[in-house]
């Protein structure tokens, strides 16, 4: 996603200028890390807050726009993509970010995710994946690991989790990356790469929910995951990369992307990027801009008898 700023604020953008009132997440929640990653990226890029819109759905992730001093739409459950598309069509001058969760994007809003990807309209899509429904008090979500007990499946979640990465790759996503809330540098670089890409940039973020599932991610060690690295990719987290495997992967290879995405092991980095995929918003704008203009005054003339 690239920006073209028209009216610019004289004031520099700082983390402080991006703050609103205090977030209402639990202490230790991974959402704080993601929020900071977004703000750090905005500061790095000096992204104009008045030309930025954060759009979210419902859930703990859905609260994010309320805590960033830009424009924001905290919409309804599962549907932020639809609202974001309206903004992208109406206001191509804006930079659009979508904050969604595993329940929001993969369950109730699954249809819109597939079609947002297919439309490939220009936005950064951040999936806050804490692997359960949190705000509604611990129910099984599409990504809850099998056997994990929740309030709706107390004897342990019945099914294998849905794999968001192979899902979006299969749907034809033009940009697929993965990161985690506890890797600030990697998170900010991932958002930057997603923003740089023109189209629907899908970013999967492993997110800790210490309140309902403190053991989901061992964020202190790194031996359980690997980083993907490439000159066209995202630089692995320096500290964590030292103690784990770093794999060279060319993000233009869809086959490679599927291989890592479908692996039992977790990979962080850029899986896939295809800069040639057409963008729906561009198509509609071109259709309008290239149409022969006609005066509204004569709109009824062709019905004359």
């Amino acid at each position, binding site marked *: 996603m690239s920006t073209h700023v028209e009216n610019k604020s004289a004031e520099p953008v700082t983390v402080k200028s991006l703050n609103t009132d205090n977030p209402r997440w639990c202490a230790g929640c991974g959402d704080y890390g993601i929020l900071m990653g977004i703000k750090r990226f905005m500061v790095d890029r000096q992204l104009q807050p008045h030309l930025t819109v*954060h*759009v979210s759905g419902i859930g703990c992730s859905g609260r994010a726009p*309320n805590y960033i001093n830009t424009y*924001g739409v905290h919409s309804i459950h599962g549907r932020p993509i639809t609202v974001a*598309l309206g903004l992208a069509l109406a206001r191509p001058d804006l930079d659009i970010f979508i904050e969604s969760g595993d329940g929001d994007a993969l369950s109730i809003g699954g249809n819109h995710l597939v079609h947002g990807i297919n439309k490939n309209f220009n936005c950064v899509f951040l999936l806050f994946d804490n692997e359960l429904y949190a705000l509604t008090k611990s129910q099984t979500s599409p990504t809850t690991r099998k056997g994990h007990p929740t309030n709706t499946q107390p004897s342990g979640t019945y099914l294998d989790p849905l794999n968001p990465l192979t899902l979006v790759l299969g749907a034809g996503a033009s940009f697929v990356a993965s990161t985690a809330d506890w890797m600030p540098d990697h998170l900010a670089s991932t958002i930057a790469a997603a923003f740089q890409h023109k189209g629907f940039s899908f970013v999967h973020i492993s997110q800790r929910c210490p309140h309902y599932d403190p053991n989901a991610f061992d964020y202190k060690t790194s031996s359980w995951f690997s980083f993907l690295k490439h000159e066209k990719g995202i630089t692995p987290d320096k500290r964590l990369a030292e103690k784990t495997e770093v794999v060279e992967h060319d993000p233009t290879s869809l086959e490679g992307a599927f291989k890592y995405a479908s692996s039992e092991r977790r990979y962080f980095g850029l899986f896939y990027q295809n800069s040639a995929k057409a963008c729906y918003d561009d198509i509609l704008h071109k259709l*309008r801009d290239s149409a022969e203009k006609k005066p509204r005054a004569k709109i009824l003339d062709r019905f004359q008898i």
Partner: protein
Amino acid sequence: MSVEKKKISRFELLMDAGFGAQKAGDILITAFAKMGKYVYIEPMIPAEISPPPRTRPALSGVIIRLADFDITNIGNDTDIILASHEIVLDRRIDDEETNVNCRVLLDMGDKPANEESYEKVCKRLTKMGISTYPFEITAESKALIQSLSNSGQNMYYLGMLSSIYNMPKEIVIAEINKTFGKKLKEEILSKNIKIYENGYDYAKANILFSIEVAGVPSQTEKILIDGNTSLSMGIIDAGIKLFSGYPITPASSIMHTLAKVFPSYGGLVHQAEDEIAAIGTAIGSYFGGVPAITCTSGPGLSLKQEFIGYATAAEIPLIVIDAQRSGPSTGMPTKTEQSDLPAVLFGNHGDNTKVILSVANVIDCFYAPQMARYLTEKLRVPVMLMSDFQTANSYKVIDKPKVTEMNNVDDIQDFVLERFHMSRLPANIEMVRDNQAAPGDLQGMRRVTGLNSDHLGQINYFSKTSQRAHAIRNSKIHEVRKALTKPEMFGPEQGNILIVGWGSSRGAIEEAINSCRAQGIPASGIHFKIVYPFPLMIKEIFSKFKKVVTVELAYGDEFKLSPLAMLLRAETLIDVQPMIAKATGRPLRPRIIMEQVKELLS
């Protein structure tokens, strides 16, 4: 050969779907209009695309009402039916809309292969007192039709009907040329015209009656347009820039029309992945400060409800067109009804605050989008624009409406407000949130949410803040209530009986009241275009009548109040009763209204 002079006449052309009955109807009414006659046309469209020919569901056709004065509805009964075979005829007779003197011209071409069936239907007609005029397409024309791979039959019928209605051949041929000239090859076109002429000549020689409805070609510019096309043009005239929809009957044709022309007027047409996505995208656009509209029918309305409530809470302008069809559930997609009123008014969870605008005719369709924009941008509450299958698909010849090229809603013209019986809203309307800036405003950064918010736009769960937000949202609706002027009335403003209706029932009510009064039956009528809120003076208006009754195309019976009656009773505490509350899928008929009035008054 006798020529019967008539002030008004109604006829029908019934065929199998896919054989061009509607095309023939369009050509004929344009020719009528050129001769200065007034026309109103209602297509009959099957819910399926191309049901097997010679089956009851295949019925496709047109009802055309023709008069020497302006007509506002499709009227009562049919004088003449031309049917391509006995099955579509039999199906249509079931609707019981034939005049006692109805004459049926029945194509006997299929009879040899279907003797029994033809005989049964003909017997049925005789029993009903309907006179049948059997005919067959001449051998020469049959050969021509065959050479056109079985098309052109409609041209033969068109020829017969033009002859029966005493139309000059050349005028209709000119319209055929205009309709097909660019689309058909010369040879095919001339064959079609030949078939038309054969039909015409056949009727002249063999059908020994004809009907003449007078007409004076007028000097004013006239257009022929249907409800959905008029709405589409109105959307452009209103300065709306994004249309976001999902295919559904009967709303879809608005999207089809705009898809062809909107880009030339700076607009975008977005076909969403579902009904919910369609409304979400309209809301996104309006949050960005760009006027947008979404439109739906039937089941789509149910799907959109959550977002309608969201727009209310988030104070984002929103216009939803609901082209009503018969329900519940899938119901009858190509039949008309007015039963969405409660769902539109009360459909989303929690307190409902919205304005409901309805259209009575094709001219209203043209101006309603401006009204909707004016209301939703001034108030930042959803505006529901209600049409129905009948209005969406019926054509009428009208004086060309004035195009206003609206950009800013404050520039809305007085005559548009007057058309919807409303005066201008106050300049400042109180909002829940003080700041209503759109992205791009350097000072206005803000977040909206469906959670309860305070005046700073912040999430707030305090009791007082919730009560305040509710009161402000409702006060917006009260501002409309106060700005509403007296609705349109027919007949004296006091008396024994007042007929109440809304939306597409206007024409039938007006005509019924006129007929009543012509016969010395004292009745009055009132019609609402803004159906919610109601103007403050309705109780006073109603209290001047001994009886107040509704006519609506929605179900009601002795235990169940129909939607409009229920609402009016709640608003006025007056004993409003449904007089006609039917869900037959067929438009209201002025004569039935009159008969009911007579019965109630006796």
